[in-house]
């Protein structure tokens, strides 16, 4: 491969991985924006989504036949199912804690995370599971860039989901209510907005997107594992901070940026790809020191 080919390849790899980060980061950002909670269980929602998709795919493939159609149907059902799981978690674990100190709800989130991944670990006996889709990776070239159908579809799907979310937030009443609640929850309540309902919707949308990302990762990488959410959770959190936590376009931007940063950082000669995670987290620390509000964040004065 020439340097130009490596550049193109990594550009694409970075965008694809970055869009996964972005989809997961959105969930962190939405929840943080609305109830100021770092929902650590979000990474495990991503993992649950992948396993949900795997089970559905196993059920549906014999009936559907077409590989892509099977994936789309299981993706949609999983998004709804895992979205509801997110709402359930919110109802059972977080809503009783909303008035408690922030640390309590953070610890609750950690507990939910452990419950989720340990449950999946017990069910799967800790084994890697093949995510069989029936897709074949026939490759073709766009210029010097080697491409497969799967990758192209996944990237487009991820970007489309982000666009749909953006429209949902900016163009619907629910989106408007979410934005209002993130500004001032108490006033919204006084204005007659059903805050609990909006919080539930936020969890539904965030979890559904994470589930979509999980299934797409399953399709792309071909295996799933109970611990698959851990690292991507940290990366998505980093992406959310880079973009400005609580700001949804920031989470998308942060995800793509982080993906690209890793893709190119790991190609620096004499630095192995084992430094990839170091790149991400050094970047996180730099942002926390020099630009704690993130790329798109505004400095707000503390309301008294």
């Amino acid at each position, binding site marked *: 491969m020439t340097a130009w080919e490596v550049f193109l*390849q990594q550009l694409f*790899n970075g965008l694809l991985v970055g869009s996964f980060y972005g989809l997961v980061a959105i969930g962190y950002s939405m929840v943080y924006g609305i109830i100021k909670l770092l929902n650590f269980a979000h990474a495990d929602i991503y993992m649950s989504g992948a396993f949900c998709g795997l089970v559905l795919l196993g059920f549906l493939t014999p009936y559907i036949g077409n590989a892509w159609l099977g994936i789309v149907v299981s993706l949609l059902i999983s998004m709804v199912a895992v979205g509801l799981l997110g709402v359930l978690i919110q109802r059972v674990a977080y809503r009783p804690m909303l008035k408690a100190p922030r640390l309590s709800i953070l610890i609750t989130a950690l507990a939910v995370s452990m419950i989720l991944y340990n449950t999946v670990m017990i069910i799967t006996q*800790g084994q890697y599971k093949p995510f069989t889709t029936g897709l074949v990776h026939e490759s073709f070239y766009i210029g010097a860039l080697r491409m497969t159908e799967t990758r192209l579809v996944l990237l487009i799907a991820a970007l489309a989901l982000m666009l749909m979310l953006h429209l949902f937030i900016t163009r619907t009443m629910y989106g408007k209510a979410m934005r209002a609640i993130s500004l001032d929850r108490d006033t919204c309540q006084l204005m007659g907005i059903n805050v609990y309902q909006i919080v539930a919707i936020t969890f539904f949308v965030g979890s559904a997107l994470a589930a979509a990302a999980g299934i797409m990762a399953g399709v792309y990488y071909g295996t799933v594992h109970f611990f698959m959410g851990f690292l991507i959770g940290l990366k998505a959190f980093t992406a959310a901070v880079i973009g400005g936590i609580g700001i949804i376009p920031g989470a998308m931007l942060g995800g793509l940026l982080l993906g690209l940063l890793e893709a190119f950082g790991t*190609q620096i000669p004499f630095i192995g*790809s*084992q430094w990839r995670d170091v790149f991400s987290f050094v970047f996180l620390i730099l942002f926390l020191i020099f630009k704690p509000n993130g790329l798109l964040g505004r400095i707000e004065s503390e309301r008294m």
Partner: protein
Amino acid sequence: MRKHWILMLVAVLFVFGVFGCAQDAAPVDGEGDVLIGIMVPVTGSEAADGIDMENAAKLAVEEINAAGGVLGRMIVTTTGDDECDPSKATAAASKLISEEVVAVVGGYCSGATLPTLSLYGDAGIPFVIAAANATSLIDENPGWAYMINSTGDAQAAKAVEWFKNLGVESIALVDDGSAFSVDLKDQTKSQWGAEGYAVLAEDRVETGTQDFSAVVTRIMAANPDGVYWTAYQGLGALLIKQLRENGYEGVIMVGDGSSAQELIDLAGADAEGVYCTAPPVVDFLPAAQSFIEGYNNSFPREPGAYAGLMYDATYLLVDAIERAGSFDGEAVKAALAATSGFEGITGPVSFTPQNTLNRSNFVILVAKDGRWALAE
């Protein structure tokens, strides 16, 4: 007055301590069952092999008990789960030691086995290591551990020999940062270099990641004739898939950590033609057929790559106890050291002065039609 109280307290504690020890030590020389510890990862990422090993040890114990036990006493096993994690392994070892096992068999992940060697050594408990085989274990061994699997250098030699056999002239090495995989990578690198060939890329993936695009692009850019993955199957399958998907057409070989059928199941069609430097897998051993039958009768799964070694380790330990004529740690250790040509299903066992197996037991497998097959 206060001083007296403290002295009294110390005296009482001392008496109870001595008395307690004496009581606890009784089962070793008295009657009743004898306790043997099994240390393997039965949960976590390497649970598949760990559970196979635990099953194999239990099968061996069942057979031994059915034939009258050891020195006239029945064996009971207790499992310490090391989760393939050094910190969990020390906890597992402490648990086994506190349960006063007479000896321990097991050891799958070298990284997790390493910190337990001194614990067993300090406690005077003989440890037969069935699978773990990094050369670093040799240096850390206080003398109480015996390794019945060939070590990393023997495996590296096999890998180099097979790469040469295939006409490969340049390779890339990829590990996952675990003690075992780094050891195998270093051994292969130095032996490959000594043959006058080039290592074009050396890389590492982080456990827990799914995305290997960085490594794959580096390998594609260096374009070596062969790639050697020295770590475990979960990540190995991901690497193989992503290499093939990106159009890599060279030879892919994996180390013994990836020799389970799971690798092929996970990597699917991409695994076809992948080579593996494997431990003596029971499927290919004529002496192991009755073991496979017994295993399949007792457990609803196939014995993995290490079940045979674990079965041998358990029988070897019992053999050593019989030869020692006692359950005393020192005596069993001496008997293990004196092992000469013990006939296991994976081949004869004798030890070098470093407590390692005195021969190389590696074979080359190739993935063919979705199964491992002998390549030689």
